[in-house]
């Protein structure tokens, strides 16, 4: 069974009474909006997916699965500029276990794709899995133009064909500070799904572009890597790295991002979701809710 964010919000509205209750009294029917698990990264991902209903809920047999991590930089994993390979590995493995036909791990990186491939170590980390393809794409033929009907500034974008055609899309960003977007979590991660990254800065304005694209893209789930986070000098680093051993997940990118803002200071500043224009605008545009009141965040 597939439940989109919208459907889930309806479900939650329907159980409004339940939501009004304190967390411990909530009936099981209310879905958690954001979950966080602490500990071994692979175990965290498994627990997270199980808590959201198991991989079978998102992936059926013979499905084409795309994972969109942040692989933006030609640096090794320990620099915390790219999503933890263990998280990608676990997700891919679970998708295959659920019967996926193949799993594509895709990004259009900030650094030159060729050098990213040589340095980011992700291919090595995934080479034990069959039917998993890691590709760093920038060439025209892998993108197709789509309309963004709800975008304010961005009306069209060239998006990876594989993302358009897949059956299940997972958003697997890493939590980093960001010199332009202040922070980069789930919403900002989608810059790597389009061909012309520069246009987000050049033409639309970064924060608005992020919010606009978020109205279009519909991942099944966002799994945010906070095993270690880059708290200063992001997104490229090198900067200060905090080890949190945490993996955060949710259907609602805005909720995930809003909560992730509270993980740390970012470039020395204490922020709330309100302070980050792209999160605020995404919430205003109906992508999700910034309300942190009823999040379920078990610390395991």
């Amino acid at each position, binding site marked *: 069974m597939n439940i989109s964010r919208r459907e889930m919000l309806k479900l939650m509205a329907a159980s409004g009474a339940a939501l009004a209750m304190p967390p411990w009294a909530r009936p099981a029917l209310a879905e958690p909006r954001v979950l966080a698990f602490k500990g071994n990264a692979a175990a965290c991902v498994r627990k997270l997916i199980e808590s959201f209903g198991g991989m079978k809920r998102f992936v059926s047999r013979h499905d084409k699965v795309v994972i969109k991590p942040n692989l933006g930089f030609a640096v090794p994993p320990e620099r915390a500029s790219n999503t933890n390979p263990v998280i990608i590995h676990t997700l891919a493995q679970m998708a295959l276990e659920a019967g996926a036909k193949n799993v594509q791990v895709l990004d259009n990186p900030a650094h030159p794709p060729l050098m990213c491939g040589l340095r980011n170590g992700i291919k090595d980390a995934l080479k034990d899995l069959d039917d998993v393809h890691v590709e760093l794409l920038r060439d025209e033929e892998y993108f197709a133009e789509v309309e963004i009907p709800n975008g304010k500034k961005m009306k069209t974008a060239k998006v990876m064909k594989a993302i358009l055609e897949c059956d299940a899309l997972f958003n697997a960003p890493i939590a980093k500070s960001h*010199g332009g977007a202040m922070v980069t979590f789930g919403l900002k991660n989608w810059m790597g799904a389009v061909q012309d990254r520069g246009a987000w800065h050049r033409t639309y304005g970064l924060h608005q572009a992020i919010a606009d694209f978020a109205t279009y893209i519909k991942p099944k789930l966002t799994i945010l890597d906070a095993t270690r986070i880059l708290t*200063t000098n992001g997104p490229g680093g090198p900067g200060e790295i905090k080890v949190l051993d945490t993996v955060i997940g949710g259907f609602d990118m805005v909720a995930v991002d809003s909560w992730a803002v509270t993980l740390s200071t970012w470039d020395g500043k204490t922020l709330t979701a309100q302070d980050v224009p792209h999160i605020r605008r995404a919430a205003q545009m109906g992508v999700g809710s910034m309300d942190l009141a009823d999040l379920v965040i078990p610390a395991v």
Partner: protein
Amino acid sequence: MKPRRVIQLSFLLLFALLIALTTFPLTLPLPVDLFLRMDPLLILGASLAARTVVQGFVVAIVVLVATALLGRFFCGWVCPLGTTIELADDALYRRRKRRWPNHQRVARGLKFVNLTIILVAAAFGYGLAFLLDPIALFTRTATYLLHPSAVFALNSGLDAARPLADQIGWLGLYYARLNQPLFSAGSLIAAAIFVTIIMLNRLQRRFWCRSLCPLGGLFGLLARLSPAQRRVGAACDHDGKCRRVCETGAIDEADLEYDPAECIMCWRCVDQCHLCVNTFDWQSPRPRVARPVDVGRRRFLIGLGGGAFGALLFNGSPARFVRPDLLLRPPGARPEDEFRKRCIRCGQCVKACPTNTLQPDWFEAGLEGLWAPVHHMRLAACDQGCNVCGQVCPTGAIRALPLIEKRYAKIGTAVIDTSRCLVYAEDKSCLVCDEACPYNAIYFVQVPNAKNRRPMVDCTRCNGCGMCDSVCPVEGRGAIPIKPDEQIRLAEGSYFFEATRRGFRFEQGGAVNQPNGAEPAASGEEQ
């Protein structure tokens, strides 16, 4: 197939293999510049021009000595260009009527004139060998014409197969794509020269080798010293067969005399002789070559004059006044003057460069700088984990440096063009230069009346790698070009010490968006 053809093809294959392996990372411990190193005209020419001794010159000396003993064996058995000319000739011109009969000596002296020009120019301190040396020329052709064409053809095939691969869900094929190398128009000249050399076969077989190749000229002079010479027995019936099959038309009209300076030791005369009177013997004492060298006093003087004129032309090039050292040369390139004298324009560095940032220069540095490598940072940056250009340079024009030294071989400095930068000119939020910079050389400053923080360059942390310029989202010309300011070019010694002495520091750890001169903070997470 004749044994000679087998050996020729083997060398051609080895040449192609070494070109293919001239790439990042260098995977096998092979001397990928082997053929260039074997070429005495290139190695000794660069040594003479730069008044130095190019490392590894011994290989070239060995070839020289071997030629004095065995004649122009290199041309007939080893030279990849010679083999290619023969193959092209077999395919395209074998059945065509030639302009002149095989034995006719047409402009044979030109190759000696070319040789003289090159040597005289080298004596004046100018490296000209690159223009016509066959190995440099062919390596260049492979880099700028053959390799990109092959990639283009393969990619076209893959493009055609892609919809099908998509249909049947074969992702490996769907995503199969080679990196297409891109080169500026200067490479077209290299291609045109190659095509011309092939078309010269219309005149006579291997016309290039007979009349134009300066390396052939050098070998020809030495071949006159060789004790291994052709002899024709008394029973010769003068049927003209040997004369007609000779690869280079070295045999005269009577089938008896031959010119060792022309003979490339192909031994087709021996194979074809139905009377078996054609032989090559090790003759002792060495017979005196009766025929004078095919360059009279007049031609020799032309060569001398040409060399001097070439040197003058270079020296007087107006580019000298616009400072050709203002170009962005690869990191580790020696001081500009010595760099140009050593550089043989083979294109090995360009071929090996993984990001495609290295490009053959056109005439920006004048005639003298033709095809020498320059950075095109807007196209791609110099990768900070790669030092391959220096590793593959056969003449040390770019020094082979360890990674850390290469990092401190400062290429130039990034300069923000405030009239184009999105933040300065339009007050938009942008940080792309900063996120790409490997050394935190970009920091931001909040100025009054501006919405967005403005990027600035900390010159002490910028080594000119060009990451910022390559990713700048401004369309067309970027807003943060690299200028050659403060570039560090050393003939010897450590770049690290020199750069540190000048106050530069290119480290990945530590300081976060510090203003000028601030000490980078220590960082424990550095790789």
